[in-house]
Each structure stands twice: as C-alpha cells, then as structure tokens.
C-alpha cells in the first residue's frame, strides 16, 4: 500500500513537470511504473465489471470512445484512456489523474485502447476480462513488419482473456481467433449484414496464410450486424433476423462506413458486458451523442466555413476516409510527413486509390513528402494545384485560396499535430490531446 502511494505521488509529480514542459503524456506513467511495477494490476484488479481491452489496427480510438459512452449511458463509472496514448504507460498516466493516494480507482469498469504489442504486454501484468478485437491491417510498417505477426499478437491476447471476446466476423485474421479462445471464454462476433458485404474488400487485407477460405461463422442472436439504411442512417441487428433485438435506426456524428462498423462493435461488446441491463434505446441515444475523436473527421470552423482534419495512417484507413468523404467534393489538401509516428515508409500511398479525387483535384500537397504524394496523385490522374512542403505556409495558402467553401485536409500524424498547433494559435481551438467539449 505504501509503495502504491509513493508511486501515485511520484507519478503525479512527473505529470506536473511534464505538463509544465508541455511534452508527451507517457512519462508520468513511466515514473509510476518504475516505482511500483504492480501498480497497474493493483489499481485495476477489483473493478466489478472488469477490464476491457480494445485492440486492432484501425478504429481503436473511435470504438473505445463509443464503448465507454455506451457503458456510461447505462450508469457505469468508466475508466478509460482518452488521450489516444495507446500503450500501458499512457494508461497509467491517465489513471494518475483519477486515483486517490490509496491507489484504488473509483470506477466500475476499465475500457482501454491498446495497440497490439502493448495490449499483450499489459495482459502479462493484468489479465483483461474482455477483449474487443477490431481488425488487422498494414500499419506502421517499421514497428510491425508483418501482418501475420500482428494477427498472432491478437490471438495471444485473446488467450489471456478470462471472460469474453468480441471478434470481427468479416476480418479473417480476427474471426479465426475464435477457435483459440480459452475454455469458458464466451466468443461473440460483430460484422456487417449480407446486404453490404460487397463493400468489405475496400476495408480489408488479403489473408494469404491459408489455402482455403475460413469456414463462415453463422451469426447468432448475440452477434451484432450492421444494417445501413442510407449513407448516414443505420441499425445494429443482433442475429441475422434481429432475433436478439436491434439498436437504432440512428445517425452518428462521425461519417462513414468505418464509424458505423465501430459502433456495431461497441454495441455488441456493451451488450455482452451489460447482459440484461442493456437497453437498446439508451444505447442508440448514447451513440448519437458521441463526438468524433481528435483527428477522426474533426471539424474546425475557420472564418465561418468548416475545415475538416482527417488523420490517415495506412492504406485501409485512407481508402475508407476517401470513400467516406469522396461523395461530397470539397477543397482538398493532403499533408504527408515521414517521421517515426507517421510511419517512415511512404510506400503505402501506392496501395490507396485516389480516383475519387480526380474530378475536383487536390488544391495543395504539403509535408516532408509533399512531392511524393503529388507524384502519387499524378499517377491516378488527379490534378494537383500546388506543392508547398512547408505546412504552415501551405495551410495559410489553402485557407486564403478557398475562403468561402468547406475544406478538408487529409494528414499523417505529425503533419496533423503541426497543422493543429498552427490552427490553435490562430483560431479558437482546444489544446492538443484535450477533447473538444
């Protein structure tokens, strides 16, 4: 107990120091972890509704936010890591804000977004009761060289879970994991209704590990299926004929098919966690109210016109983003950096099809690899208005040349951070890492 208290105090001091210096969110967690390596386990162990880990390549932040909102709407106190700092130290850092010196978290359930490698490291310290596994795609190739390797990490994570896993029915890398869940661990699935199955290839990687296709899983009444009504409205059906009930119809604030699938995953998981307490009307209302997380279709009003910032980090994500926004052409800028956090290899831009931008063209490309993305667009016959590698100059020019219309910037991570700082300085934007309220 004394040790935990010391850890909390040390971590808090570090957090304050970090804040004063204005740097990253992981350092305080590192300090607390050093002082008490069992800090995490001790703090989380007694949560009555368990510890849920959300992992996979795309959609972690959005889905975590939706799942937390669903549980809160049902009256649970939820501890989560909202900063998108998706590794264990980040979890501890956000915990330090909420734990009293006793080290006991006053929450009913923890919903934690963790990337594949950190999820496994976390599970070595604290066994999650539940896991929601979203998808496997090419991402951050410097870190996870092989998709197969990433899929294996998720499978090992599923083995650590004590109570239940929720898996993506439509992603063969993930659905196969169902066979590997431990004894007594309940497996549920989320996926899309047969009526939109033809849109899945745009969201997925090829699974070439096995010569034969995976045997199809027949959805049961506990499995959530996405049934869209139109571009914005959808419902989640439990079971192919909604024999387990339905959530919706509803519209999300965040646009696009990927967000709807995330909502389906979150609703399926919430229903598993809540059991009989799950209320479809309450769930639909909670999902309607979820605001897009930072960088996922965030809209900033600049001079009375919307400017959307869209984070792109891998081919599947960029393709989905283009599909989501492509049907309403607006002035577009694309900013690509190649720092570590962006992924240093920009080859993946050639796995994205930019044809939907052909008609309207791209006003400006920017970032360290501004010419590489311009070249990529040229190969898809997308006209490029100008190339300006300097981000601040590019943004100023983009806003100046497109004053009276909606604008959209697709950007890699560090490009987005830089653009956002620039916007925050010139317009009224909440600070980095904080949620708009």
């Amino acid at each position, binding site marked *: 107990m004394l040790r935990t208290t010391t850890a909390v105090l040390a971590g808090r001091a570090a957090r304050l120091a970090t804040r004063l210096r204005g740097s990253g969110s992981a350092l305080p967690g590192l300090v607390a972890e050093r002082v008490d390596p069992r800090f995490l386990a001790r703090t989380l162990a007694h949560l009555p509704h368990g510890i849920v880990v959300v992992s996979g390549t795309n959609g972690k932040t959005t889905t975590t936010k939706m799942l937390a909102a669903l549980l809160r709407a049902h009256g649970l106190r939820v501890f989560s890591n909202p900063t998108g700092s998706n590794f264990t130290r980040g979890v501890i850092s956000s915990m330090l804000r909420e734990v009293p010196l006793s080290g006991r978290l006053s929450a009913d359930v923890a919903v934690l977004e963790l990337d594949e490698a950190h999820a496994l490291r976390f599970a070595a310290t604290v066994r999650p009761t539940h896991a929601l596994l979203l998808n496997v795609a090419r991402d951050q190739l410097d870190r996870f060289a092989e998709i197969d390797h990433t899929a294996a990490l998720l499978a090992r994570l599923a083995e650590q879970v004590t109570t239940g896993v929720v898996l993506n029915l439509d992603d063969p890398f993930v659905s196969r994991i169902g066979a590997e869940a431990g004894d007594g661990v309940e497996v549920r699935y989320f996926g899309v209704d047969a009526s939109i199955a033809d849109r899945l290839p745009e969201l997925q990687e090829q699974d*070439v*590990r096995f010569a034969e296709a995976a045997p199809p899983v027949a959805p049961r009444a506990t499995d959530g299926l996405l049934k869209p009504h139109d571009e914005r409205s959808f419902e989640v059906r439990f079971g192919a004929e909604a024999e387990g009930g339905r959530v919706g119809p509803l519209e999300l604030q965040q646009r696009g098919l990927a967000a709807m699938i995330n909502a389906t995953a979150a609703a399926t998981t919430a229903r598993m966690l809540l059991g009989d307490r799950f209320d479809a009307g309450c769930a639909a209302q909670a999902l309607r109210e979820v605001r897009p997380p930072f960088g996922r279709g965030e809209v900033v009003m600049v001079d009375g016109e919307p400017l959307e910032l869209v984070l792109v980090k891998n081919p599947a994500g960029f393709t989905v983003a283009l599909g989501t926004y492509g049907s309403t052409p607006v002035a577009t800028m694309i900013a690509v950096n190649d720092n570590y956090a962006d992924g240093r290899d920009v*080859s993946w831009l*050639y796995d994205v099809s930019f044809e939907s931008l052909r008609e309207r063209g791209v006003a400006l490309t920017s970032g360290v690899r501004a010419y590489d993305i311009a070249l990529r667009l040229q*190969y898809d016959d997308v006209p490029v208005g100008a190339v300006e590698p300097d981000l601040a100059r590019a943004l100023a020019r983009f806003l100046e040349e497109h004053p009276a219309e909606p604008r959209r910037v697709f950007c890699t991570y560090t490009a987005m951070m830089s653009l956002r700082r620039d916007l925050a300085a010139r317009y009224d934007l909440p600070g980095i890492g904080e949620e708009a309220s």
Partner: protein
Amino acid sequence: MTQTELASQTAAALPDDAGRSKGTIHVVHLYPREMSIYGDLGNTRCLTARIRRHGYTPVLHQHHPGAPFPEVAHLLVGGGGQDSGQARVEDDLALVADRLRSLAADGVPMLMICGMYQLFGNAFITVAGQRLPGLGILDVTTQGNAKRMVGPVVLRTDVGEVVGYENHSGSTTLGAGQSPFGTVLSGIGNNGTDGTEGARSGNVIGSYLHGPVLPANPALADSLIGIAAEQATGRPFEPEPQDDAFADEARTRQVRRLVR
C-alpha cells in the same frame, strides 16, 4: 473506363488504337496477391501508365499460383511478401522456373523486389540453417537474419541516383562475378557490409528497394520499358517526352536529406 484502366484490369489483349499505338507491351506481375506489400503495386501502376504515355499499349497480366503462365511476356515485375505469401508461391515457382529462366536468357527485362529478389537467387538459408533453393537467375545467396534492415535508401546506379525504402530481414551476398544493382550512398543494402544493393544480370534486376522504386525513379522505369518495347516490336524504343517534375523533385529531395 479508359483504356489504361481496362488494360490494368484485364489480361485480354486490346486492339491497337487504330494504328496510333507504337505496339503492345505485355507486362506480367508475378503473384500480385501473395507477393505484393509495401506499395509494390506502385511499380506496375507506374509501368502501365508510362508505357501508355510513351505511345505504346500496355497489357497487364496478373499471374496467380496454379494459373497458366501468360504466353507473351515483354516485362516481368515481382514484389515483396510475408513468409506466408512466400510459402504459397514456391510450388508455382518450381512449375514456371524453366520459362522464367528462358525469358531471362532472351533478355526480357525483369524487376524483382525484396522477397522475389531473394527467390530469384541461388538459395535462401533460414536462421535455423535450412537451405531453400531459389531459381538461380541471379547469383546471390540470402541468409535469414533475426534483425530487420529497415529505412530509406539512396543508391548510385547505371541509371543515376535511385531512392527507395528497404525493409528486409534477409542478408544477401553476391556471387563472385555478380554485379550489384547499385552502390549504397545511404541505407543498408544487401548486407550492410559491402556497400552493394541488389543484383543485375543482363536485363534482370533484383533489389530490396520498395518505395515503390519506379515512380520516383523514372529513368529506371524507362530503361525497363525501353528494352521491353524493343522486345515487343523488334524496333528501337521511341520514347515521348515526359513530365517528371514531381518525380525529380521527390527524388532529389530525398538525396539531399540523406546524402551529405
């Protein structure tokens, strides 16, 4: 649908556009499903687009395991893959090996990246010491490695400076008479010790450079297309002027960043 889109989607030959085409160039992409990662598709995209811009008609064949090998082939490309992908293509590669060797002997240009570069060599020796034979078209041997060699690369080659990105765990050694594809100016290359990158025998090039390597290095793309055009038409290559401003700027910026 434009002709290029059609050409890149079907393997069927297109009728020459009322005699305006200088000839039809058949490009074969080896194992696009299993051996295509890290943007390797960019190479085939670049080749078909530039073939068209030079006034020829591209026909892209995607060769999948178990399918008959295309009868006409003027230019071959292959990419990198994961171990699982590599395992899937090995049986097929044994079936088409003689055809690939005779095409190489006939001077058909080939660009084999990463995993396919390794498979075009003599052998791959796993970390456990197991020897997996390759096609032997390039006199190189690759030793499996626990450590990955990852990062941006700049080379000096016969077609000038070439930029790209490497990501491989195999360490490759050239045979005594084997020329490299390039000399490393920045990055790791075949093995990190002898300053070589890739291998070149006749018109067959093997390299670790993804990037993908062709779009930002149009001189390399055009050298392959030029040989393929001669193969296809029996006449010298008749190039058209190209607008390579973006490519040249992208490449020279990388050279400036990485090589001092």
